């Protein structure tokens, strides 16, 4: 743990006293106390909350398996976003995307690994959707297509190249070919977050999709944070902010205070992009029925919902742990909101992406069965790059070199890991769908799932594998209670 020795010692001293008084010492809690006593600051944390109950392991896919000797590579794993009000549509070949992880929160080598891997996959026929995260986009993300560079002045292009070379040099990546780098074969969604961390209008105009970030699962109601130690000069230059000072995004868009403001914002972005670009609205899972109703009425093409355990680069510890509801639990109110809306409106291509604690094909299938059209994966890709889950991303210490600069990330190896991860996950998804007799991944449905405990059954409305559900289980408890109380209960 990268904490000063006297903080660690103070924590052990406190633990000793607590034990002598006859209590169990909660070491995690005492560590936060020791930190607060040392610096008087709110302690930060990163990645996802330690949810005691995230329900996924309690949900089973009845006959679908990730492994099969049969070839199910024909099964349709594609996902489209857009078309509800946008002229253009984003098409991907897998129903999962790279969730937003900003440059700054994640270091350059990690961003380049993702970029190279996704390009490679696109060349091999697998287009995967990438999300920039809220810290702006890197030059090759904005100008990675021939079309986007057409109208660039020489002066502008020169300054872009200059910044790019600075980035590559600082990270010992001069070996990368500039032409190859400035190729983007995959679709890109840019995040429109409250911090507005971009300087170039092309950020919005060259994107394949715009995601208005209202909130994320790790810090609902709280703005984004990049600690000062991670705002290097290069990061600051990219975002248009001061170096070495913490970058705090406001907890809400200053121009979105209520539902009608969101409508105005979506329409503004539509006008800006000529009604071509799909608009997505992202929220954390909290008062999700009401929030979904507002998004459905806001002329957006798609909603992204991020559950409690969604990761972050930095958030106050208590905000990360205590605010928001679990991903699976949020899917019930979301389904209700969507069904209620379409009782009085025609189906019109609205899509739902769900993030938060989803990293493998089984979890993707369960989420899709429970109502999502696709998912976003964050932590899974970090793991693919070698993340050891020590959850210190908000500091500069990262054993894998993903979010910190003390270790060096092997870009080639990471890119290969990401490539394999996506390829294998697609095969597993197709196996699951194939063994269930479905032609498309999106056809996996609730009848293909079952649960093994009462709470999960209540929260997901899924049955047990023997066909009973929480209603019948509780009814049988009622039977037992009536017998035990010896209540005859006269028949009317």
């Amino acid at each position: 743990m990268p904490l000063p020795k006297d903080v660690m010692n103070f924590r052990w001293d406190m633990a000793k006293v607590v034990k002598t008084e006859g209590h169990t010492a909660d070491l995690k809690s005492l560590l936060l106390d020791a930190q607060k006593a040392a610096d008087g600051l709110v302690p930060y944390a990163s990645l996802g909350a330690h949810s005691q109950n995230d329900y996924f392991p309690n949900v089973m896919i009845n006959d679908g398996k990730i492994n099969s000797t049969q070839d199910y590579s024909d099964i349709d794993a594609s996902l489209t976003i857009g078309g509800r009000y946008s002229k253009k549509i984003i098409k991907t070949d897998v129903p999962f995307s790279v969730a937003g992880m900003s440059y700054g929160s994640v270091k350059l080598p990690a961003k380049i690994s993702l970029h190279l891997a996704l390009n490679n996959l696109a060349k091999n026929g697998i287009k995967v959707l990438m999300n920039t995260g809220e810290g702006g986009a890197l030059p090759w993300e904005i100008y990675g297509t021939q079309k986007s560079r057409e109208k660039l002045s020489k002066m502008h292009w020169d300054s872009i190249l200059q910044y790019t070379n600075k980035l590559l040099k600082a990270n010992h990546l001069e070996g990368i070919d500039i032409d190859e780098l400035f190729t983007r074969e995959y679709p890109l969604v840019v995040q429109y977050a409250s911090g507005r961390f971009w300087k170039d209008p092309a950020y919005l105009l060259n994107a394949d999709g715009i995601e208005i970030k209202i909130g994320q699962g790790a810090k609902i109601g709280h703005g984004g944070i990049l600690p000062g130690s991670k705002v290097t000069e290069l990061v600051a230059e990219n975002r248009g902010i001061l170096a070495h000072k913490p970058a705090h995004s406001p907890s809400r868009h200053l121009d979105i205070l209520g539902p009608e403001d969101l409508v105005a914002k979506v329409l503004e972005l539509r006008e800006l992009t000529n009604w071509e670009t799909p608009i997505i609205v992202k929220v954390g899972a909290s008062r999700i029925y009401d929030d979904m109703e507002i998004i459905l009425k806001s002329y957006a093409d798609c909603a992204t919902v991020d559950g409690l355990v969604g990761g972050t680069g930095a958030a106050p510890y208590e905000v990360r742990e205590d605010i928001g509801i679990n991903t699976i639990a949020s899917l019930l109110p979301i389904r209700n909101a969507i069904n209620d809306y379409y009782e009085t409106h025609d189906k019109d291509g609205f899509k739902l992406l769900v993030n938060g604690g989803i990293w493998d094909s089984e979890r993707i299938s369960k989420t899709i069965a429970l109502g999502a059209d696709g998912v976003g994966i964050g932590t899974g890709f970090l793991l693919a790059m070698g993340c050891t889950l020590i959850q210190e991303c908000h500091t500069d210490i990262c054993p894998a070199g993903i979010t910190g600069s003390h270790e060096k990330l092997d870009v080639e190896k990471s890119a290969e890991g990401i490539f394999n991860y996506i390829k294998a996950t697609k095969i597993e998804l197709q196996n699951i769908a194939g063994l269930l007799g479905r032609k498309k991944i999106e056809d996996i449905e609730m009848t293909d799932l079952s649960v093994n405990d009462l709470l999960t059954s209540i929260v997901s409305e899924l049955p047990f594998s023997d066909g009973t559900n929480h209603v019948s289980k509780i009814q049988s408890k009622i039977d037992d209670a009536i017998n035990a109380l010896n209540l005859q209960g006269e028949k009317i």
Partner: protein
Amino acid sequence: MCGICGLMMDDSSLRYSPVGSILQDMMESQQIRAQDGAGIAIFDKNNAGDSFKIKNFRKEGMSNYSIDEVESSSENVPENLEKLSQDSECHFFSFENEMTILKETGLARDLDRKFGIRKMNGSHGIGHLRIATSSRVTPYNTHPFSTTIVPDIAIVHNGEITNYNMLRDSLELEGFTFHTDSDSEVIAVFLASKILKHGDIERAHREFVAKADGPFTYIAATADSIAIVRDKFGTRKGIIGYNPGDSDHPPFWAMATDLSALDVVGATTKIETPHPGKPRIFYRN
């Protein structure tokens, strides 16, 4: 999410005062904001006397509602209110003496067609256009909200009372009754409970601003006052203007969410934005 408006005639003689017509103009100008429901409350001294009306929505079939009106004298009002609380098919929406509340789902002009709002005169009134976000689109969830505690209180509201549950629990514990699930109703019940306690409406508004949390602007009308109140951070809009009067109508104060609503009715002098957290109240002459 909503458009609110209100006006108070500034003339003690109250010669021809087309309150309904002016309110209707203000509402129709803001219609683009909200289309799920419309409602008005208009106050007319000529209705004063020992006659009280209790109005309810009665459900008929799947999604139709009819309006029930029960007339009482001051003697049998408590008895009739008790009867109403026993009837589960009824949704209370108005307790009137000088006031008339008319509200319905749909557009403002449909409200006029159904009830003849433009023909209504009075000294002051308030209006509301609703876009539903957190409760069903039904007539009883439309504003203005009234209460069974005292007659002649109506409120219209734009925003959220975020500590609604806490305020409601506390008022219910004290013994006051709620009739809907809308957070806006708590404004009416709170103000009424304070009027019962000390009778000072301006003080009641100040107490509400201190107690309530969240973004809100509301306009509240009693038999002799109308006030526009913004939350202490001024998170929601609100604006006041004055029309100096002409041959068609007396001078009046107007208030609304949008400046455009004041423009449409010529209330373009003495424009002011109510200070966040400080109720701006107008009394009947």
